């Protein structure tokens, strides 16, 4: 247990350092992009600004301070729970993110559930009869899931369903689950299907590989020799041990989804954090992008930590220590 604790603490410390790195990296990278909030909002109209007006706008957008002071006041505010302010939305970044993160989170969870629901059974089926049709089909499915871009699938589904069947819940304006569960679930349906399908691919592969790996091991053969039924064998012995890489893979995918769902959010008009960052980059709203990226990275890091904990919890070799 102590080994586990110190390992976790070490990892946590490392993660914190990583987040600091992310903060610095995104801060400077954003300012390297040409243009600023003034040119983003005024466009060529900015040509008509007088000196006084320009200075006033720089103050308004918080661009007038030195880089160092901008960085440290941002970080200082972070510690106080102040993620910054979005001038365009006239809301704190915290409020905006608090509204956006659950959307992406819900999408990610649904996508993962769908991916697991498809991926694990297919992977197990494929592994049970290696080389036979079910294996070939399973692998083909996985290949397609890996190869079809999410935006292609999303585009096709949305356009055809909306125009041919009049089914377009995503055009109704986003409703949270608590506001309107029926509409919310309808709005999440297509995007989670699209993302879930894509993620099911690596899960099929990982499951198949892990099951094959475990099946070939001694303790399984022993169980078989002892006459344990196939069904029991599959679930109790094989799956539990194959879970480790599956869990690792799932955690990884979940983390990626938090930031990687941006294209699907865009197509299905879901106001998630991916979209928030994308819009922020276009509008050169530094504070918004910095803090949101940091939040996404932190979420990713936390998911990794949790996955790691889970991994250690279920890995019998670790538990035996």
């Amino acid at each position, binding site marked *: 247990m102590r080994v586990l604790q110190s390992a976790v603490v070490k990892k946590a410390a490392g993660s914190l350092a990583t987040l600091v790195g992310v903060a610095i990296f995104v801060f400077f990278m954003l300012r390297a*992009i*040409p*243009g*600023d909030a003034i*040119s*983003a*909002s*005024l*466009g*060529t*109209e*900015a*040509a*008509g*600004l*007088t000196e*006084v*007006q*320009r200075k*006033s*706008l720089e103050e*308004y957008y918080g661009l007038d301070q030195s880089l160092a002071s901008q960085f440290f006041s941002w970080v200082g505010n972070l510690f106080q729970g102040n993620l910054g302010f*979005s001038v*365009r*939305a*006239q*809301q704190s970044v915290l409020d*905006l993110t608090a*509204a*956006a993160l659950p959307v992406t989170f819900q999408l990610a969870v649904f996508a993962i559930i769908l991916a697991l629901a498809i991926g694990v059974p297919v992977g197990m089926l494929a592994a049970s009869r290696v080389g036979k049709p079910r294996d070939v089909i399973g692998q083909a499915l996985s290949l397609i899931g890996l190869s079809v871009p999410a935006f292609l699938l999303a*585009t096709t589904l*949305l*356009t055809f369903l*909306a*125009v041919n069947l*009049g*089914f*377009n819940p*995503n*055009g*109704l*304006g*986003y409703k949270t689950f608590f506001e309107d569960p029926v509409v919310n679930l309808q709005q999440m349906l297509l995007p989670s299907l699209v993302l879930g399908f894509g993620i099911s691919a690596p899960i099929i592969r990982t499951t198949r590989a892990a099951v094959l790996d475990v099946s070939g091991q001694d303790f399984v053969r022993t169980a078989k020799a002892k006459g344990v039924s196939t069904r029991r064998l599959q679930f109790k012995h094989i799956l539990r041990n194959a879970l480790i890489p599956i869990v690792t893979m799932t955690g990884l995918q979940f983390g990626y989804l938090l930031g990687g769902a941006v294209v699907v959010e*865009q*197509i*299905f*008009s879901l*106001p998630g954090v991916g*979209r*928030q960052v*994308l*819009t922020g980059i*276009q*509008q*050169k709203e530094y504070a918004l992008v910095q803090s949101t990226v940091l939040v996404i990275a932190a979420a990713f890091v936390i998911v990794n930590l949790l996955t790691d904990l889970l991994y250690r919890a279920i890995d019998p070799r670790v538990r035996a220590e």
Partner: protein
Amino acid sequence: MTQLNRQSASPIKALALASAAAMVLVGCAAADEEQETVAPTASETQEPAAVGGNMVVGITVDPDTIFPWKATQFQAFRMLENVYDTLTAFDADLNVVPGLAESWEISADGTSITFDLRDGVTFADGSSFGSEDVKYSYEAIQDEENAAVARSTLGGVTSIETPDADTVVLNLATADVGLLANLTSVNLAIVSSDDTEESLSTATNGTGPFVLESRTAGQNVVLARNSSYWGNPTPLDTLEFRVLPDEAAIAAAMSAGNVQMAVFSDPITARTVSGGVTVNTTPQLSYHALMLNARNGSMTSTDVRLAISCAIDRQSVLDTALLGEGEVTGPITSPAFKSDPNARPCPERDLAKSAEYLAASGNAGGLEIDAIVAQDLYAGAVDIAQAVAAQLAEANITLNLEVLESGTYIDRWIAGDFETAIALNGGRPDPDGMYGRYFPSTGNLNQVSGYSSDSMDKLFADGKVEGDPAARKAIYDAVSKELEDNAVWVWLFSGYTYTATSDTITGFTPMTTGSWQYLRTTGLQ
């Protein structure tokens, strides 16, 4: 051509459409004329709309501000023009009509305008509207510290008097015939003297037909009927501007009946909306041009510029890049002052003449020039640039395209740091508004336009004070002539705006300025 940015409110396009609402025709501003007390209404032939209901308009990005004096974005304008009022307004034919001012009198020398304000108007918070609000608003706009976009519009206003609660007098340094039209822009909205920019950045308090009910970042802005509005109440209970990130999503939503109205940037998307939808094609006041910087490199030679101008078949570029959806234009697109597109040295493409000019400039062997192009500010820029380059290539002129990201393009455009630029610039109903900043040597965009001359300065000065409409048109015809004869820029064409409205709504009239003010007379059937 980048999709996201193209779909999001490009500032140029925004301004193009929005700022057109800022100026007006001279026609009705003659001295000593009384005006009718009539608020802008939809044409009489429309069916009356049912009272009640909610309407949804699709937009691709949220309005980026709710404070009228700082708004430049298309979506912000469209929302705010229904929440705030200005002293004067436009009707559907771009005539200046009363807004918050019922009538006005212009002094004989044009340097003083006395406005008689409307009675019984209140702001949404219940406070009464009066002359002190007008004075407060205009003086705040003039204050550079406030970085109001329309500061230069009031640049000639030397003082504002408020003899009583219903009267405002604007004293001008010189006559400014276009001023009454300029005052219609929501950038010159009248706010309550009790309000500040801070208070108006989170909530609205206007005298218009709608009030802001709610605003959810990234999702929608909802307006509700203002029950204490001074004019005809709007049929709708609420009006929602719903954010759907791109036009394909909006088209899908319209097909499914979720959205009743939207503006599309290209005709194909507009026409893919299925179901009972009407698409209105309205010519824009904004124009595409190849801006030539006459102070830079080979552009200093008039012969070179003329060679370029003669080498381009504008209709062909229009056909190739915008699928023919638009009209070839001259410099001035303001309807009452429209330039004749054929009034230029080469009305048709003339490669022989182009070669002559090129030889006269000493570049008989060919010429290489650079053009900056914005890849993600507005749709079609790169296609237009390519088409122009293809045309020039046949005239022995190589146009090197520097396709730039919007931030970089804007920075260079503002600094005038280019030899030539493919641009989409805003047009306005009043020609002084359109070019008063670009071509007079004192204009604050003169470093961008790259051209000035004594004759141009005189023309603009005269145009500003000339009260007689016919004489004024003649002045601006002269401006147009000088611009074309010297090939200051190569004016290409104006595009169209495609407004799609569902057949379930009635009472909406699109305007060439791009304004959606007739949302106040729109309702469900």
